[in-house]
């Protein structure tokens, strides 16, 4: 899946990867790749500025910490980020139900 298709959903995807707990940047990228079965193919260098933008927005907080013996910047969801993720999930469900209703189920029967 190319980065153009992901751009509109990147914030929600990043928030979702942090739902289970704090992660450092590369672990977030690995989680995205793992959860998507490797289909999410975007330059990893675009993820870090997006994380910083989410931090500016107050949706995530970050700090430098030592993980597995190395210093890494670790991100966690804030309360506002948790609420934003819930909203994104609700909007996504609504969207997929609507699109599935139109595109799913194969060809439409011929109109009389």
């Amino acid at each position, binding site marked *: 899946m190319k*980065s153009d298709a992901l751009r509109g959903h990147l*914030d929600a995807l990043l928030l979702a990867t942090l739902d289970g707990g704090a992660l*450092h*940047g*590369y672990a977030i*990228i690995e989680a995205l790749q793992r959860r998507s079965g490797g289909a999410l193919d975007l*330059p*990893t*260098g*675009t993820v*870090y*500025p*997006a994380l*910083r*933008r*989410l931090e*500016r*927005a*107050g*949706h995530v907080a970050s700090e430098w910490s030592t993980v597995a013996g*190395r*210093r*890494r*910047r670790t991100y966690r969801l804030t309360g506002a980020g948790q609420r*934003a993720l819930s909203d994104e999930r609700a909007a996504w469900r609504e969207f997929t139900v609507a699109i599935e209703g139109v595109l799913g189920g194969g060809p439409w029967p011929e109109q009389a």
Partner: protein
Amino acid sequence: MAGASVIDSYVGELDGRLRGPAAAKADLLAEARDSLDDAAERHRDHGLSAEEAERRAVEEFGPLTAVVPGYQGELAAAHAATMLRTLMVLIPLTNVVWELNRMFWIGPWPSFPGTPTPAWYKVVSQANGYVPWVITAGAAGSLLVGRLLSRRGVGGMALGRLAAAVAVTCVGFAIVLNLAVITGTAVLDAPRLLMPAPVMAATLLFYVVFFRVGLLAKRCLALSAV
């Protein structure tokens, strides 16, 4: 860069393409470096040679043309936030310094000799007195608006330009009102402008702060236009 690793060269090029506050830039580059090291380590664990693992890590990180705009946007946003905080703190602080000096060295303003204070002068001087607090509120409000715009996906470059516009407007407004009071005072009672040296110095401090904020706004625009 003779002898530099693939990752060293890439991070060096990224460093060379980015402009902005040194601490924020160092922080972003350290994180990028960590990410590249993590990716290279993963590829080595999967059997690639050290050089090939680094090359793969750099490929995955993305070409500089794709990566630089996002990083530069964050640097512009960081600079913009610092500028707005400077505006928010320095202007009212300078105003307090000026007022304390004025109270100590001059005391309450005397009436103008032989003429009641004109209504227009009262309006201009009162507005001039409120300006520092209006600027403080404007800068604080802009920081809040920046956060809300970030939630709507607005990038750092746009926020930088917006912050520069706010700063220039605030400083411009303050200078115009200050010059209006000075001109009005010169018309009504010119000798009053010859204030004690500490008050003059405090007035000069105002203009130093205005100049400083102006420079910060100029840099903000430059960082937002890369």
